[in-house]
């Protein structure tokens, strides 16, 4: 179907079902129960899941296929966001021009940065991209403040021109009148599920991007990228110049990042410079490795995993802990809280770090390898059978 192999088709269908049913899947606990703390099915977080999914899918096209580790991908995310917000400011709140421009500008920046950075490989390439991203961050944070509004972040003001805006149109981002914020809440007994317009738009775009990524992975172009990862020297000796291929991969993944940035701005019309900081670049590397670099679904899983921790675990404070352990005697309650305390709330970084270590040590192929191991257990096969698949996912040095 759609020019895909059977295996890829079923993967695409599974992802489609998962994203379309996400409001149900992510809200498994009744709204009033104590476990509701772990529900992730509210519009903002669901949007983030798919937007960062797009970001990570794009990053994986570069990192997973060519092995070039870009440490500055967040720059494209930021550039995409700024482009989109500028379109809101100048043209109006319809998100199409913004998303369009964000893909174009980030593609151009990727061409420029890639052209320079790809003259080197390995660690030198990583450092070059990191330097460019930090430069963009510094520029956006202070030097280019008239363009980016600096620390405060670029916002839309009532005094902005918004040439195509009329009073009949909603005063928040919309797609031909469909507000991105609008949410339809389904109350089913104790459960409540949110269906958000913005989420479904992002999810559809992510499915499209996922499909394109599959096609790239299975194309001759993708094969060439894998060849670059496997042995670039040998490729050179066969008379092929790998640079156009890596540059194309870099620009494509930059455009993915720009699209993600544009969508972020469309869901929440503010572009902050922190979006470009090196920590944000590092985050997408973590997402990809955590999920499984070089696999199709891995980066999306990794993105979901990290965003879940960032948004859910960081909100568990001592008061919540006291509610959980209230049934225990005082001494034991305080003892347990003292143990759990460093790992939740502001300590969510610590928990995430430990999980990351565990996954990298025990599942070098990321969450995808974990899934494969479990699946093969169920099928009654030995884990050995997965060895070829696993080696496929090992990231390049």
């Amino acid at each position: 179907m759609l020019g895909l192999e059977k295996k890829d088709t079923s993967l695409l269908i599974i992802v489609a079902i998962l994203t379309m049913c996400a409001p149900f899947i992510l809200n498994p606990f009744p709204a009033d129960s104590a476990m509701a703390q772990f529900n992730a099915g509210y519009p903002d977080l669901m949007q983030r899941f798919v937007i960062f999914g797009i970001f990570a899918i794009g990053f994986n096209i570069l990192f997973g296929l060519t092995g070039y580790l870009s440490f500055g991908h967040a720059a494209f995310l930021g550039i995409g966001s700024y482009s989109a917000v500028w379109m809101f400011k100048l043209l109006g709140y319809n998100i199409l021009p913004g998303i369009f421009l964000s893909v174009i500008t980030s593609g151009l920046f990727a061409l420029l940065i890639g052209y320079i950075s790809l003259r080197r490989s390995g660690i030198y390439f990583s450092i070059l991209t990191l330097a460019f991203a930090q430069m963009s961050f510094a520029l956006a944070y202070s030097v280019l403040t008239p363009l980016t509004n600096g620390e405060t972040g670029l916002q839309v003001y009532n005094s902005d021109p918004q040439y195509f805006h009329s009073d009949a149109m909603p005063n928040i981002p919309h797609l031909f009148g469909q507000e991105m914020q609008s949410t339809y809440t389904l109350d089913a007994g104790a459960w409540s599920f949110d269906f958000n317009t913005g989420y479904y738009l992002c999810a559809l775009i992510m499915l499209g991007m996922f499909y394109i990524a599959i096609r790239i992975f299975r194309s001759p172009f993708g094969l060439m990228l894998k060849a670059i990862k496997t042995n670039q020297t040998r490729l050179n000796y066969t008379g092929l110049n790998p640079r156009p291929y890596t540059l194309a991969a870099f620009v494509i993944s930059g455009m993915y990042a720009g699209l993600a940035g544009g969508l972020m701005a469309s869901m929440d019309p503010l572009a902050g410079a922190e979006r470009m900081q090196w920590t944000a670049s590092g985050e997408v590397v973590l997402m990809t490795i955590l999920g499984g670099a070089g696999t199709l679904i891995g980066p999306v899983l990794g993105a979901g995993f990290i965003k879940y921790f960032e948004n859910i675990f960081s909100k568990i404070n001592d008061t919540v802990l006291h509610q959980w352990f209230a049934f225990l005697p005082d001494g034991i309650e305080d003892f347990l809280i003292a143990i759990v305390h460093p790992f939740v709330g502001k300590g969510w970084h610590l928990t995430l770090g430990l999980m990351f270590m565990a996954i990298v040590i025990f599942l070098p192929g990321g969450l995808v390898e974990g899934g494969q191991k479990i699946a093969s257990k169920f099928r009654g096969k030995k884990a050995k059978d997965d060895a070829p698949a696993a080696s496929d996912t090992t990231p390049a040095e």
Partner: protein
Amino acid sequence: MSNSNFTRRGLLKTSAMAGGALAMPTIYDGSVWADAHAGYLNAPTGSTVTLGFNVPQSGPYADEGADELRAYELAVEHLNGGGDGGMMNTFSSKALQGNGILGKKVEFVTGDTQTKSDAARASAKSMIEKDGAIMITGGSSSGVAVAVQGLCQEAGVIFMAGLTHSNDTTGKDKKANGFRHFFNGYMSAAALAPVLKARYGTDRTAYHLTADYTWGWTQQESIQAATEAMGWKTANNVLTPLATTDFSSYVAPVLNSGADVLVLNHYGGNMVNSLTSAVQFGLREKQVNGKNFEIVVPLYSRLMAKGAGENVKGIFGSTNWHWSLTDEGSKAFVKSFGEKYGFPPSQAAHTCYVQTMLYADAAERAGTFNPCGIAEALEGFKFDGLGNGETEYRAEDHQCFKDVLVVKGKDNPTSEFDLLEIVEITPRAQVEYAVDHPMFAGGELGKCNPGA
């Protein structure tokens, strides 16, 4: 005996059927929602009301964030009738009963802003969308405050700003749903200028080192305007990148510039580092133009003074509030904070506590949690007994006007908290400005948004 078929399978079946039957759709972006509920977003339906405390728990301002959170917890305890009531007893408005807000028990959720606009907005959004928070408060930097204020305006909840000192928060970025109790750069300058004039004279040349972002600029602009108005000259203004940790290359040129006052428009860790460099370069022992070289830090906080240690002695600055104030409100607050946590509160804690009280009081007086009702109750509200003397929430820009403290690093601190001494309490009239003052021009409040 009735035949109650209460097996697991039976329960599942029934609940599935009940779920199907109860699957009554509600839309909360339009009039349908407004009809079904009280006409505003997140209207509390049960016996509780949820407030969202959005503070930096990691990043450069984590210390301030931790202190803010302590103050919020104390405020919630007092609102629910626990503890000794703190400033509720000294507050000039007596609407609060100690039974929560409008009879509803106050609950809260917390989030980590990471001192990043993006993360702060994500965290605020989850409070609004997931936890049903009716009000968001907090923030330890102006960038975050402006970003979250914008979000609250769009979403339709009230934002009570925490520590934010930039003119923009209630200037060009002011919003109808946002309120600031903290003072701002202009007020710092207006309060400091007369004191500097009295101590250092009118024939001075200032050299500015300024953190290169919005807050730094507005602060520098304010100080320059205020000092030039009394006869000072400005030798130079050098912008320092926010991530700078070694300021020696910025401090060295100061000596040859002919300036005899160094103004450090830095905050937090930046200020600690720049002040330390300046002192290490021996600036304070220098004589320029026959006068002693002086250093001024326009915005002070106790946590910063602690970081800079010995170096702050004798250095002037301004602050919103200090725990050594002896009015009834401050004493009550310091007492209940100290009893709960064992040390005195910072100015960040104070402003956050006060903002929570003001919100609760406004809800009581308005008789509703509707953001528009609360905004109306807060606009032009005059009060006393919350530690700053007589204070007014100006209706035109949602900025509190009150006295400003000019402080000096204490020469002989008696404890690790006793680092600043109050030099002068500049009366409100001196720090007040017109709504359309050029430093605050450009924005408009817009209309209050109840979110439904």
